[in-house]
C-alpha cells in the first residue's frame, strides 16, 4: 500500500486488486478476534474451560460467563461493526466524500438525541420502543446531510461536509445534554450509553435489532450498481439511465436502518464507518460490489478488536468500545488529512 500523493502528476498506479486475498485476510482476522473476544475478559478463563463451555456446558461459572456474557457480546460486536462499516461505504459513496462517516456527520448524533428524548421525556424503556426513535433521528440527520450534499453541483467538499456534521452533532449534543442535566437517573444511564459499549446487552437485544440490520444490508447490496454509476457524478448517472432519486432514497433508508439499529443497541460508536471503507478500498479498489461485503467484515473486525483491547487495557475495569475507537480512529483521520489522501 504505497502512499499516493494526490496532486503530483504521475500516471495513475494500477494497483492489482486482490479481492480473494482480502476476503481471506478479513475472515482470518475475524476468526482471531472472535476467539479473543470469547476467551478474554475480566474473569480469567483457561482455553480448556472456554472449550468446555462451548461444547459441553455443565453450568459452571466459567460456562455462564462464556455463554451468557461473552458470546452474545461477540455476536453484537459483529452485528454493529458490520452495520457501521456498510453505512460508511454508503455515506462515502452517496456524498462522494472520503470523510463521510455516520458518527462524524451527525447521524449517530441524531439517533442518540431521539433515543434520549424517548427514554427521558417519553419514558420508553425497551429497545423495541426506542429503536424507532433512533431510526427517526438518524433519518432526519441523514436527510439534512444529503440535502446539503445536493445543494452544490459537484457535491460538498470534505470540509463543508465535515463542518456541517460538526454543526449538527454539536447542536444535537447540546440539546441531548440539556435533557439529561439535572435528572440524576437518566444522566447516569446516559453517560454509560453515550460512551458506546457492548457489555450487558444480552442475546435478546441482539436478536431484536438483527432484522433491521439485515434489511439494511440487503438494501445496501441492492444499492451497489447505483453507487458505482453515481461515482461518475449525478448528471452522468442520469445520462446512463440511473434513477438517481430512487437510488438516493434506498441509500438513505439503508443508512438509517444500519446506523439507527446500531446506535439503539450499542450507543454512538464513531470512526468504524470512516476507517473500514478506506481500508477495504486500498485493498480491492472502488467497486462497491466488493466494498460492501468486505467493509462489513472489516467493520466487524474493528469493533471486536477495539472491544477486546478495551477489556485488556484498564483491567479489571473496561474501556467502552466507542472510546477505544475514538482514541484510535482520530490518528487515522488525521493521517488521512496529512497524507493528502483527501483532496481539500
Amino acid at each position, binding site marked *: 500500500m504505497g502512499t499516493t500523493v494526490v496532486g503530483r502528476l504521475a500516471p495513475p498506479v494500477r494497483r492489482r486488486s486482490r479481492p480473494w486475498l482480502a476476503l481471506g485476510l478479513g475472515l482470518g482476522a475475524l476468526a482471531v478476534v472472535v476467539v479473543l473476544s470469547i476467551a478474554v475478559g475480566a474473569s480469567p478463563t483457561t482455553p480448556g474451560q472456554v472449550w468446555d463451555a462451548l461444547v459441553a456446558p455443565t453450568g459452571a461459572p466459567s460456562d455462564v460467563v462464556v455463554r451468557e456474557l461473552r458470546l452474545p457480546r461477540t455476536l453484537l460486536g459483529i452485528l454493529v461493526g458490520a452495520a457501521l462499516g456498510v453505512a460508511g461505504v454508503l455515506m462515502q459513496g452517496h456524498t462522494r466524500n472520503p470523510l463521510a462517516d455516520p458518527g462524524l456527520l451527525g447521524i449517530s448524533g441524531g439517533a442518540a438525541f431521539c433515543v434520549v428524548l424517548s427514554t427521558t421525556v417519553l419514558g420508553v424503556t425497551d429497545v423495541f420502543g426506542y429503536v424507532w426513535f433512533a431510526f427517526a433521528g438518524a433519518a432526519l440527520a441523514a436527510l439534512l446531510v444529503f440535502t446539503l450534499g445536493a445543494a452544490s453541483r459537484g457535491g460538498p467538499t470534505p470540509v463543508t461536509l465535515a463542518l456541517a456534521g460538526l454543526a449538527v452533532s454539536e447542536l444535537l449534543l447540546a440539546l441531548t445534554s440539556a435533557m439529561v442535566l439535572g435528572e440524576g437517573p437518566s444522566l447516569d444511564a446516559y453517560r454509560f450509553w453515550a460512551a458506546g459499549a457492548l457489555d450487558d446487552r444480552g442475546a435478546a437485544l441482539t436478536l431484536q435489532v438483527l432484522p433491521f440490520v439485515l434489511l439494511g444490508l440487503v438494501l445496501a447490496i441492492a444499492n451497489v450498481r447505483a453507487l458505482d454509476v453515481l461515482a461518475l457524478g449525478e448528471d452522468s448517472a442520469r445520462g446512463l439511465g440511473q434513477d438517481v432519486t430512487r437510488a438516493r432514497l434506498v441509500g438513505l433508508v439503508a443508512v438509517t436502518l444500519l446506523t439507527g439499529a446500531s446506535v439503539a443497541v450499542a450507543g454512538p460508536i464513531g470512526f468504524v464507518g470512516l476507517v473500514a471503507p478506506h481500508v477495504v478500498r486500498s485493498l480491492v479498489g472502488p467497486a462497491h460490489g466488493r466494498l460492501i461485503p468486505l467493509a462489513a467484515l472489516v467493520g466487524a473486525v474493528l469493533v471486536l478488536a477495539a472491544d477486546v483491547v478495551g477489556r485488556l487495557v484498564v483491567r479489571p475495569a473496561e474501556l467502552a468500545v466507542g472510546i477505544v475507537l475514538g482514541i484510535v480512529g482520530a490518528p487515522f483521520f488525521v493521517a488521512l488529512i496529512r497524507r493528502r489522501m483527501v483532496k*481539500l
Partner: protein
Amino acid sequence: MSAPVAGRRPLRAGPVSAVWRPRTAFVVLGGLALLVLVGAASVGRGEYPIALADVLRVLAGAGSRGETFVITQLRLPRVLCGVLVGAALGVAGAITQGVARNPLTSPDVLGVTDGAGVAALAVLVLAGTGGSAVGLLAAVGLPLAALVGGLLAAALVVGLAYRQGLDAFRFILVGLGISVALVSVTSWLLVLANVQQASLALIWLRGSLNARGWEHVVPVAVVLVIVLPIAIVLAFRLDALDLGDDAARGLGERVDRSRVQLLGLAVVLAASACAAAGPIRFVALVTPQVSLRLTGGSRPPLLASAVAGALLVVTGDLVARTVLGGEVPVGVVTVVLGAPYLLYLLVRRTRKDSA
C-alpha cells in the same frame, strides 16, 4: 501604510497610522450601550428581582445594604464573568479567522475547548475524591488545568496541521479529528466519575456561568487587559497577511512568525475564557462574522467582536436563566444559536462555489 483611502484622512503618529472609521466606532459604542442595558437587566433578574433603576443606582454606589450585597457579591460577578468571557472569545475568534483568512475557523475547531474540557474533567474526577482539599482544588486547579489543557490541545492541532504553511481547511479537519479523540477521553472520564461528579462535569462541559464569583472574573480580566492591547497592535500585521503570503513576505513581513504569535494570543484568550466558564461554544465562531457584517471591512474587527461576544454571552445567560429556567447552561443557548448559523454559512458558500 499605502495611499490613503479615498475620502478618508489617515491619522498618523510616528510610525503608526490608522483610519477613522465612523461605522466601526458606531457599532462598538452602540454595542457597549446595549451591553450595559442587558447587563443591568441581567443583574436585576433573579430570585430577588431588582428594578433596572435600582440596579443602576447601586452600581453608582447609592443603594440599600441588602441590594448592594446581592448585586456586588452574587449577581455582578456572574454578569461580569459573562462579559469578559464573551469578549475574550470574540477577540480569539476574530484573530483566528483573520489569521486563517477563513470564516469557518475558530478556537473551537482548534481543539482549545475540548482540550480544556478533558483537563478540567480529569481534575474534577481523578482528584475529586478527597475531602476538604476539593474546594481549593476546584477553585484553583480546575481553571488552571483547563488553561493548560486548552493550550496543549491547540499546540497539538497546530503542530499536526502545519505542513509547508497553514492551510485553513487542513487546520479545521485536523482539529476535528483531535477533538473527536478528546471527546472520547471525556466520555471515559464521565464513566469513571460518580453520579454527583458526572452531573457537575456535564454542566461544566456545556459552559455555564452558574455560581461564578470574583475569583473567576479576575483571571480573565487580567488576561484580557494584557493580551488585548498586544493583539490590537499585532493585528496590524494582518493587513499585510491579507494580501497573501507572497505579497506579505515581499513587504517584509515574517509571515509564519506573525501567524503563530497571533494564534498563540487567540489560544490564550480562548483557553482562559474556558477556564472561567467552561467551553461556551460557537461564540468565537459567530460573533466575528456578525460584527464583520455590521462594520464592513476586510476581516473581523477585534473590538467590535469583543463587544458582540460579550453581548451574546450575557444575553444568552439572561435567556437561559429567565425563559428556559435555571438549570440550562448558557452554552446550550449559544450552540442552539450558533450551529444553525454555521450551517447557513456553509450552505451560502456551497451555493457560491457551485454557481
